[in-house]
């Protein structure tokens, strides 16, 4: 078989090159930004639909879909929401059998994009906003993906079951025997957000922290959207991890939920967006991808979704602690990518599921 150069080889080669010749620019510039043109809109309208696989909370996903449909009539958005790890599994399964159903993808586990890049199935496309406004650490150098949203995994508690002064302030506080049997936690095998959080917690606090935590009779749920909802129901008093945004939405709707940013640092997960090379609706995919990074959509991400945006023009929501004031744990998609298997296996062993 003739030897072909994969992207990986090129990367290796460029790294080697970078080591020896630091003065030379490392690689060609990212593909130029592609503005939304009338031609693109027309082509997208001709396709008439676009399929979005995502792990953001369903109401937010549907809201974004509706606002896109209102802006570009005639293009229906079909949202497929499931946990980030399931999104990854689903894409893998479908691509494995050459079914190309997905146009645009979002996952709260940035490591997935490293894997997809390695498989060479992503389509380079740089929306105008990404080129102009996004900080370099939030966009892929080859123009394959950019950070659609940033999510935090926070500690939370039910305000009718726990008084503010008794509430845990840190991860260490959660080991207090008084929380035994009272905590709920999501699963890294399902949730990308929790996968990132588990990586960061075990990196910063060590695996023995989780081993101690597992002795606290934790209620194990799947999605990181679930623990805040279990708090609101009053099923558990405290959540170990879970989406900040769900907790904020519930709190702002008057539910007895309060958010705690742990003193050790709050685990952070970046959720990029990308288009697939084999997208069945390539033009509508580009249009949706462009739309998702506009200040308009990013403001929805903040206002409706209570998520964090890295678009500098998107405004922080009044009454929520701004991202810059929160001590976060450092996110490291490459580290997650490398350790994901080990994390899932060790986690299952420790927590039994």
């Amino acid at each position, binding site marked *: 078989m003739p030897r072909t150069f994969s992207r990986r080889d090129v990367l290796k080669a460029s790294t080697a090159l970078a080591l020896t010749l630091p003065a030379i620019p490392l690689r060609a510039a990212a593909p130029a930004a592609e503005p939304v043109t009338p031609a693109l809109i027309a082509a997208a309208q001709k396709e008439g639909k676009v399929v979005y696989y995502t792990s953001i909370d*369903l109401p937010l996903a549907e809201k974004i879909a509706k606002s896109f449909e209102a802006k570009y009539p005639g293009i229906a958005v079909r949202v497929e929401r499931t946990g980030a790890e399931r999104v990854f599994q*689903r894409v893998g399964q479908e691509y494995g059998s050459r079914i190309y159903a997905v146009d645009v993808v979002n996952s709260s586990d940035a490591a997935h994009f490293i894997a997809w890049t390695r498989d060479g199935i992503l389509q380079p496309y740089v929306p105008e906003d990404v080129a102009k406004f996004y900080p370099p650490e939030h966009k892929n150098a080859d123009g394959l993906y950019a950070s659609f949203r940033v999510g935090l995994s926070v500690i939370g508690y039910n305000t009718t079951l726990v008084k503010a002064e008794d509430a845990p302030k840190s991860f260490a506080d959660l080991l207090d025997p008084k929380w035994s049997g*009272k905590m709920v936690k999501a699963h890294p095998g399902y949730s990308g957000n929790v996968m990132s959080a588990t990586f960061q917690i075990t990196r910063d606090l060590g695996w023995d922290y989780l081993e101690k935590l597992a002795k606290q009779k934790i209620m194990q749920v799947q*999605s990181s959207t679930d623990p805040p909802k279990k708090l609101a129901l009053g099923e558990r008093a405290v959540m170990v991890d879970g989406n900040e945004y769900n907790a904020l939405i519930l709190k702002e709707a008057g539910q007895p939920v309060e958010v705690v940013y742990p003193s050790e640092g709050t685990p952070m997960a970046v959720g990029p967006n990308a288009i697939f090379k084999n997208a069945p609706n390539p033009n509508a995919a580009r249009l949706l991808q462009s739309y998702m990074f506009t200040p308009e959509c990013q403001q929805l991400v903040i206002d409706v979704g209570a998520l964090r945006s890295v678009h500098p023009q998107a405004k922080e929501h009044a009454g929520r602690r701004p991202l810059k004031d929160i001590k976060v744990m450092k996110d490291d998609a490459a580290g997650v990518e490398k350790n994901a298997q080990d994390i899932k296996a060790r986690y299952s062993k420790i927590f039994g599921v």
Partner: protein
Amino acid sequence: MTVTASDQPVRITHGFDFTKLVLYGFALALCLLIVLPMSWLVYYGFVDKSGAFTLQNFITLANDPTLREPFVTTFILAFSTSLICCAVAAPMGWLVARTDMPFRRTVRLMVTASFVTPPFLGAIAWELLAAPNSGLLNKVYRMMTGAESDAVLFNIYSFPGLIFVIACYTFPYVFVLVANALDRTPGELEDASSILGGGTWVTARRITIPLALPALLAGALVAFLQAMTLFGSPAILALPAGFHTMTTKIWSLFQYPPKPELAAAASLPLLILTIMLLRAEHMILGRRSYAVLGGKNSAPRLIVLGRLRWLALAFCFIVLLNPVFLPYGALLNASFSKVASQFVSFSNFTFHNIYFVFFELSATRLALYNTFVLGIATATIGTIVAVVISYLTTREAVTGHKALGFLATAPVAIPGIVLGVGLFLSYTRPPFVLYGTLWILLLAFLTLAMPAAYQQMQSAFKAIHPELEDASRILGATRLRALREITAPLLRTSVIATWCFVFVGTIRELSAAIMLFTSETKVISVLIFDLNESGDLAAISVLGIIMLIVTSCIVALANRLRSGGGNVRLRDN
């Protein structure tokens, strides 16, 4: 024409017997349906990643405690469930079929209601009822006793909780089999017993119960297998409790990176276990003939319970509280409540959940459509196939009929999720590329429905003595004509029952669907499961109520058709 009385079967030579052609066609289809995915499973069980033969998968299975424990758990689960189901369903079936207990029809209807309830929906409803802190029952308990705010009466996230919930939705299988068997038991045998001096209880003990025993044993078996292969309830209740059953373990083996070889290896011992169970059943029942519906029968007599009838009714009511009244109440409550775990009141009554499901959730309409298309197609095709196969096996019409019967029963041994994977492996590559279409789900549902449909039809066929067909054929009818004019009318009740059986079984199927769906082919059960994982209990309640209403309507309609068609029980006239 001469009729020989030799022990050779009578061969009818006049008129071409189309039956054989039909028979072999069905046999071939069934082989494809079942053998193909099973072969892939076996293949995957014995190869490593590169495709070379290995036993490593089984060694891993035996050595890894996280893989071994779920087996033990599952076995205990299935055994306890089966036991509870029999203990509850047998007396209920007897009360309904053979006594003068009041509201017998209503009780039957209610059991049907628990039967049409998807087990995963029941499990979610029981989360609402008996989650240790937010569960409605625990709240009521704390309210009534003034107990501490963390006092817990029921904890559904536990092993007993799981057994309880599974039994709630498995006992109808036993009930239906027992009640039907008792319905069919001819009155003469009991009359004879009475004439010979046997009292009510002696007759029950010596005549009725032994005649119902095969059905009870079959029911116990079905309950065992059902509990063993169930996926939804353990996924919903066992994972939060921190343990795995075999099905959830296999499912987790398909999470990234998928380990189909381990999953295949894990499912093979179960397949063997099931085959052994089926063999055992055959050995217990095989020696006797239980054909009770012959040419001459009379209606069974009802036992007069006297004052005990109200006690009996109370028993039935308490049993039905668990699978029907309480869960439905909880779902209805959650549909209209702002917070699923709070009782509806003026302050938190809302229509938002309903609005959300129908107007904001973009997946609802497609999922409803897919579910009903698949339900109707599976029920129709499945019933036809089951009728043909049962005919072939009970009448021993073709050589190899035993293999056919085995094939039709075999899927009972395959957890839906594993079958899903088998199908996934079989139909994602040429020549059959079906993944991503509704066809692959149809195949999965057909295969999964086959054992239940086959067993229903087979017991119906067994209960019709071949003398009726023989008479027709002696008079010159071909096999097909005998089937059409004699057997078919006698089977109408069972056919309708089987259709309903398969339909409700299909629209609530989750475990295979969860492996085989794509965004285009999502069904309601998968949608509900997704919603459960993200904790959207209110949306689930709305969807669940819709599902229950639709299925109840179909079952009621089928019941009406059945009674409108006249009483099919043969009378002595």
